[in-house]
Each structure stands twice: as structure tokens, then as C-alpha cells.
């Protein structure tokens, strides 16, 4: 059995790291990775909260957060592909 406090520490640290990455990284790919890390941290916090109160509502919310993670990843990658396809060929290569 692990203390739930430790899981919250891990989730908050991952969330902060993702936030730092989102603010400091300029590339589209870096921002996508940062948001994925933040959503991962969010679902960890929800699972830890579910264990604290021994209630599976947190698990259901975590499943929704993971669905949002997939939607964000797919939409972000699709937007990146469209942007790369439609950019001017004379333009310098983007930092994906």
C-alpha cells in the first residue's frame, strides 16, 4: 500500500513540469508533449483521489481525462500535418 500523498506529489510535479514545458518550449511538438504530460498527471491525481475515498467516480473521471488526452493528441497531430502540408515551400523548415 502506498501513501496517497506521494501520488499527489508525483501528479503535481508532472503537472508543473508540463506547464513549464508549455510555457518555455516554442515548438509545436514540444507543446503537444507538454500537454500530454499534464493530462497524464491529471488522470493520476484523479485515480489517487478515487483511492482516498474508496470511490470509483474518480476512475470514471480518469477515463474521461484519458479520452481527452487521445482527442488532444489526435487533433494536435492532425493540425500539425495540415500546417506542414499547406505551408509555403520557400518557407524555412518549421521546428516541429
Amino acid at each position, binding site marked *: 500500500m502506498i501513501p496517497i500523498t506521494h501520488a499527489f506529489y*508525483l501528479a503535481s510535479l508532472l503537472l508543473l*513540469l508540463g506547464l513549464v514545458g508549455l510555457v518555455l518550449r516554442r515548438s509545436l511538438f514540444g507543446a503537444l508533449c507538454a500537454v500530454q*504530460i499534464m493530462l497524464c498527471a491529471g*488522470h493520476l491525481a484523479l*485515480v489517487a483521489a478515487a483511492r482516498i475515498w474508496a470511490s470509483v467516480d474518480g476512475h470514471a473521471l*480518469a477515463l474521461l481525462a484519458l479520452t*481527452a*488526452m*487521445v482527442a488532444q493528441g489526435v487533433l494536435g497531430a492532425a493540425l500539425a500535418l495540415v500546417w*506542414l502540408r499547406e505551408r509555403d515551400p520557400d518557407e524555412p523548415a518549421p521546428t516541429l
Partner: protein
Amino acid sequence: MTASLVLFYIAAALGLAGAIQALRSREPRAALRALAVVIGAAVAVDLLLVAPWVALFAAIAGGLVIAVMNLASGLGGDAPAGPRRRRATIAGLALIAGLTWIFLGTWGRQLAFPGHDLAPGASFGSLRQAATALAGETLTLPLALPLLLFAGLVGALALLDEGQRSRRR
């Protein structure tokens, strides 16, 4: 120190190292490998917190996201190393150092609550329980509906954009 606590510390260390590597890496494929480590660590922590179905879904969702992002990463060039990358690394390490300091400084006073006891033989974390909670009206209406509306809005915008383009042609 129990075996599950040791496993948790290993997963946490791997997850944090993976997150820093994913954020500081300038090569998309290396960043994706690091992101896979973060998702793997999250799956391990899910299992330790008695959420096997969430762990399974996280593994599938993570694999899907990494596969899709891998497609996009093949088309891009490397981001040049610059002061921002160094700043991201320094800020990440400073955050970890700060939280470690808090963690060690409050060691004896921490509320290390392991959660409410589960009843013997309780099926906490089962798929049936999660599905029942997900289907309950308190969760579905306020949460799933906006997500569906958002997806519909994005689809409508994409269709509108495509229609305008075909009219221009």
C-alpha cells in the same frame, strides 16, 4: 519500506526523468520515447493504486497518442538548441529540487494517508463499477456532453473550411 512503495518510487523516478527528457529533447522521436516512459510509469502507478482498468485504458490511449504523434514527427525538422531549452531544463530541475526540499523538510509531519480501508472481498476498481459510475447521470451529462459538443464543433469547422476551399476551386 514495502515492495509496492519501492515500485512506486521506481515508477515515479522513471516518470519524472522521462518528463524532463521529453521536454528538453530536440529530436521528436527521442521526445516520443521519453513520453512513452512517462505513460508507462503512469500505468504502473495506476496499477499500484488499484485501478487496473484505468491502467489498461491508459496504456491503449498512450499507445494510440504516441503512434499518431509519431506520424507527425516524421515530417518535422529538429528544433535548434537554444537558451529556451536550457531554461526549460533548469526550471524543471529547480521544480524537482524545490519539491524534494519540501518533501524532506516535512518528512516527519506529512499526512501519509494510505486511503480508506477497502472492505474484504470488495471489487474496488472493477470494470463494472467504473462503467456504472461513467453511465451515472452526475458524470455523463456535465462532462461527456461538452466533450462531444467540442468534437462536433471541430468537425463542423473542418467541414466549413473544406466547403469554402472547394467553392474557391
